[in-house]
């Protein structure tokens, strides 16, 4: 069916609404990466089997389900958010957590009203708490504000009908009722800034591209950056997998605004699900006349080509990304001339991140004026974050800009696992930094984070407790960047190697007092002289760790001690006899048999034999294994 007008859209949505009413059981299994890893696909198959055994008429393709007499739909959505409690299921609007394949029969029976839903499948704040059925009752969800991720987890990402049903493409139609110039004005006025990390005002970027392409009488391109690669970040992945249409809609609006007839979406090769869903979505949009020639019967034509990345982190950097699309080696080039003037194939190019494009349809929708009601003076709207690390509720969240780190980590994230003390939060991935407890009340927006030496980045947020060593964290990110540096310019290629060597020295206990100064000096020079944004920001994890946790670095260097018990050469584990109950857990968990003692007797670690792997500490229920002072 070809969409020509707004009424085509509303009729289609109405049609879906009517047909959907016949489906009495709708089970949506979370297909986010976390839940898939926890066995969501096996669970879905078990649900289908159980429904079949209970004589339900099942359909697993939403589009087919609408046109058949099936009364049960079982399908997979994108990420539903609370990865920690996966696999998740949304069943007729209720959220079920930690569902196992063996629960499948009960779930189907409860869905058809034969029994009541086993209470164990509902979320509880604590083991004895009240079971909560609705997302709005669960603190993790209740404090979020979903704009970009609005339909993620609800929408069926392989069905255009599902997207249209949820109001999809009405924003595009709205945009088409305005002139391109007006669309840019609206985006500009919304205060939307690039979600990829830099935070450049999107409207201004679009306008300068239009100006450059008019001045040179050139064509221009629009490119979507889906090469998300920061450790601990999966927002873009969740969006592309969970709602590919909103990304495409944002791109089409952008293309209309700047007058591009060709767009590219560059997706990380390690995201095969995102690649296949986007490809499918592009085909469906083309068939519906939402991509291709004469969109909405206008004289505007636009196509999108999907390009798979080559597996290099650096290709997320704009100039490297464009070179990669051009078929060249994905290495950055100097950006003394902006890509809005000379970008892809030397022509004016707008490059925006997945999440930025996902915000655009909301801004152009009926309720678009709400966008700038969220956020701070300089950072409007909301931002998606991936809560990872030692936090109770890991998962995908979206909060208004300006929400404090404390709210994100403690209110939404539920605090630190096992109620251990909070130590640091790493934001902005390898280009960002670690912030200590003193910065917890910092409102999260582009400028505040930059000011304290971290970065918004794409939105990874890794929470660390007192068992994380800041030297080790700095070493980890440096090691990551060392492996990902393209090697083109000297400061990044050789500098990262030397920084990593120096950090290794600290964690091995062979560093001298000068080492910290050497690190700082080299890091500062790298920031100034490296070629691209990746190299320029590569020393950030080290510098921020040094700024905020200098005493810990000094302790490593001067006292040869790692208080977190991570750096093997500087750690001695001892068992606190006042706490040890002699449960044998550590003894059986030790890979080198370094722990002696029988049941109900205090265990002892043989320091000579111990390899400092920390396995005993992980398994001890009484926190009796401690780092020697």
């Amino acid at each position, binding site marked *: 069916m070809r969409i020509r007008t707004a009424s085509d859209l509303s009729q289609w949505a109405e049609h879906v609404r009517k047909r959907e009413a016949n489906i009495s059981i709708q089970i949506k299994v979370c297909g986010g990466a976390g839940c898939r890893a926890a066995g969501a696909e096996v669970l879905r198959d078990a649900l289908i089997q159980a429904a079949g055994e209970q004589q339900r008429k099942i359909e697993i393709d939403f589009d087919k389900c609408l046109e058949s007499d099936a009364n049960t739909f079982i399908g997979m959505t994108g990420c539903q958010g609370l990865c920690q409690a996966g696999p998740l299921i949304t069943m007729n609007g209720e959220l079920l957590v930690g569902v196992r394949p063996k629960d499948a029969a009960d779930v189907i029976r409860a869905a058809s009203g034969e029994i009541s839903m086993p209470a164990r499948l509902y979320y509880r704040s604590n083991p004895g708490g009240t079971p909560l059925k609705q997302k709005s009752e669960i603190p993790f969800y209740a404090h979020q504000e979903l704009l970009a991720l609005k339909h993620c987890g609800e929408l069926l990402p392989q069905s255009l009908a599902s997207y249209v049903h949820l109001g999809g493409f009405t924003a595009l139609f709205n945009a088409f009722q305005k002139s391109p110039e007006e669309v840019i004005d609206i985006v500009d006025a919304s205060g939307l800034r690039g979600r990829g990390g830099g935070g450049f005002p999107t409207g201004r970027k679009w306008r300068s591209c239009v100006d450059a392409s008019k001045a040179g009488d050139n064509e221009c391109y629009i490119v979507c950056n889906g090469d998300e690669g920061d450790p601990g970040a999966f927002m873009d992945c969740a969006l592309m997998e969970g709602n590919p249409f909103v990304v495409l809609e944002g791109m089409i609006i952008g293309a209309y605004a700047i007058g591009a007839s060709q767009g590219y979406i560059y997706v990380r090769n390690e995201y095969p699900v995102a690649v296949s869903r986007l490809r499918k979505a592009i085909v469906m949009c083309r068939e519906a006349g939402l991509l291709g020639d004469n969109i909405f019967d206008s004289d505007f034509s636009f196509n999108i080509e999907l390009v798979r990345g080559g597996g*290099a982190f*650096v290709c997320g950097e704009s100039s490297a990304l464009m070179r990669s699309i051009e078929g060249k*080696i994905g*290495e950055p*080039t*100097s950006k*003394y*001339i902006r890509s809005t003037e000379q970008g892809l194939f030397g022509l004016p190019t707008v490059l925006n991140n997945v999440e930025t494009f996902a915000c655009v349809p909301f801004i152009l929708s009926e309720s678009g004026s709400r966008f700038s009601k969220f956020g701070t003076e300089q950072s409007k709207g909301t931002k998606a974050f991936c809560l990872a690390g030692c936090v109770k509720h890991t998962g995908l969240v979206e909060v208004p800009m300006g929400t404090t780190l404390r709210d994100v980590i403690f209110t939404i994230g539920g605090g630190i696992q096992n109620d251990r003390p909070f130590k640091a939060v790493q934001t902005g991935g390898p280009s960002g930094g670690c912030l200590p407890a003193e910065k917890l009340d910092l409102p999260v927006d582009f400028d505040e984070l930059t000011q304290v030496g971290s970065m918004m980045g794409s939105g990874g947020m890794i929470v660390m407790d007192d068992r994380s060593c800041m030297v080790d964290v700095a070493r980890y990110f440096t090691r990551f960047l*060392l*492996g*990902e*540096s*393209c*090697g*083109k*310019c*000297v*400061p990044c*290629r*050789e*500098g*990262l*190697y*030397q920084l990593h*060597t120096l950090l290794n020295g600290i964690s091995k206990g062979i560093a001298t007092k000068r080492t910290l100064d*050497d690190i700082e*000096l*080299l890091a500062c*020079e*790298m920031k*100034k*002289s*490296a*070629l691209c944004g990746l190299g320029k920001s590569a020393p950030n994890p080290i510098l921020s760790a040094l700024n905020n946790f200098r005493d810990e670095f000094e302790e490593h260097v001067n006292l040869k001690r790692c208080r977190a018990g991570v750096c093997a050469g500087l750690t001695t584990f001892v068992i606190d006899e006042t706490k040890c109950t002699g449960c044998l857990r550590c003894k059986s968990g030790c890979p080198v048999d370094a722990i002696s003692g029988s049941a109900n007797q205090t265990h002892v670690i043989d320091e000579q034999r111990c390899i400092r792997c920390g396995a005993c500490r992980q398994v001890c229920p009484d926190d009796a294994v401690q780092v020697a002072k």
Partner: protein
Amino acid sequence: MILRIDGKQIEAKKWDTILSAAKRNGISIPSLCHHDALENVGACRLCVVEVKTSSNGERKLVTACEYKVAPHIEVFTHSEAVRRSRQTTLDLLLARAPENKLLLDLSRENGVESTSYSTSPDANECILCYLCTRACEKMGCNAISAVGRGQGKSIQPPFLTVPDACVGCGSCAAICPTGFIEMIDMPSKRVIWGKEFERAKCESCGAPLIPVAYREWAIANRELPEDYYLQCQECKRKELASKFSGLGVS
């Protein structure tokens, strides 16, 4: 266009980079990866200079080889920030190739005696300046390129095999600033990138010439006459001289 470099008023053309404008006006800026005949890549970061734009008065480090001149900018080629940056870069490069004469000379000129860093285990004298790959590309062969990433990056033929596309012209070896690319010329053959090339012989005196493959490639791809390089320079000169003497020119 007028700009200021180190306090001096400099006349520059609009297509100039800071490096080319400075060079023409006798201001020296060190560089390793720049070559007048090749596209700039900004890899070595040695030609960094400080630029102050009139818009906000902020001073930033840019590579002189890539930064296009603009009116009213002020350039500092030897400021403290520039000196520190160059020293760090040279210090890092020396850790990669501690014995290299070119680097040692350049470092000493810039106040670095030896590297303060640990030398990397797989250190070699290739400083990844990309002059060879750019020269090869410019020649039209594209027989070598940078392979891998980070510290482990190296200049290699495709799939680390003997390069099919190489015609043995030797441009890469000739342009390599550190002498890392090895080319062996013997009377009968030339060996480079693990590939052997038979050398053409002067049809008059039998002296070894350029590789046969290169001669044939050049004739086919560069619109050169069929008799290109059939003789050595010396014989060619003699033949020409005898022709002239036959014409009565002395």
